[in-house]
């Protein structure tokens, strides 16, 4: 399945958002996730199924003003 991860097209075998986070090597507890513009809490990532061309954002703390 092809999805968009942080703006880049990615081919993934993961079925859920939690599996994608694991597959892509993110530290699950230190990122926040959204799919198709909607926030997905850490606790529900395992039940959120990916779909073709899903837009996934995985964000971390960064400098800001």
């Amino acid at each position, binding site marked *: 399945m092809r999805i968009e991860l942080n703006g880049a097209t990615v081919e993934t075998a993961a079925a859920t958002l939690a599996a994608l986070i694991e597959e892509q090597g993110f530290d699950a507890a230190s*990122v926040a996730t959204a799919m198709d513009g909607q926030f997905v809490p850490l606790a529900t990532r395992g039940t959120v199924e990916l779909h073709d061309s899903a837009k996934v954002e995985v*964000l971390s703390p960064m400098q*800001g003003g």
Partner: protein
Amino acid sequence: MFYGIDLQSRLMLGTAQYPSPQVLRDAIAASGAEVITVSLRREGAGGDAFRDILKQSGCRILPNTAGCHTVQEAVTTAQMARELFGTSWIKLEVIGHADTLQPDPFALVEAARILAADGFEVFPYTTEDLIVGEKLIEAGCQVLMPWGAPIGSGQGLRHREALKTMRAHFPDIPLVVDAGIGAPSQAMAAMEMGFDAVLLNTAVAKALDPVAMARAFGQAVAAGRAAHDAGLMPRRDMAVASTPIFGMADLA
């Protein structure tokens, strides 16, 4: 009081654009700030180091929704920030114009209403418009953050009289001048006018010596607040001699 939190230092400091992580760390310490702002972005290099700085600073974290132009973007970003930083504080920015980075007041009020209802403690980045301020309060905001000038411009208090009016109009709402401050004198002026805090970033981060400038801002904000508390003398149009005339010698 900012959502029940009393702060000793009334300077809130941004964490972006510093020449190095070490300078950022030292600048936070030198400023005396107890609140620092952060953002959420796609993971890049140096993510772990930044997380360490946040922890070690001992500061309260105020995540922002910088760069968001729609209600949906801002609300989703706020929700992600709440989970990641473990705080319901959110500096709500909904930008309406790319050149001025002026807030979009309509989207701002809508996003504030959604977030306040969801338990967020919203710090809305707004203008000095009184009606927008009232709508934000009605939406659930207990703090307002009017701009001094466009973000990063260093122009200071561009609408000084309007800010004075805003202070008078909302005597019981904590007001923070956020953005556009370029010099400690401008931060001090805002504090002398009775604002509850000042939030800035670029003026410190882009100074030749950010750590020394952070210290200068900390001192200016403290002095401005002390001056306000002490009660400034009324301004007069004409001179009034301070030395008594009584007892003066006749030497003419």
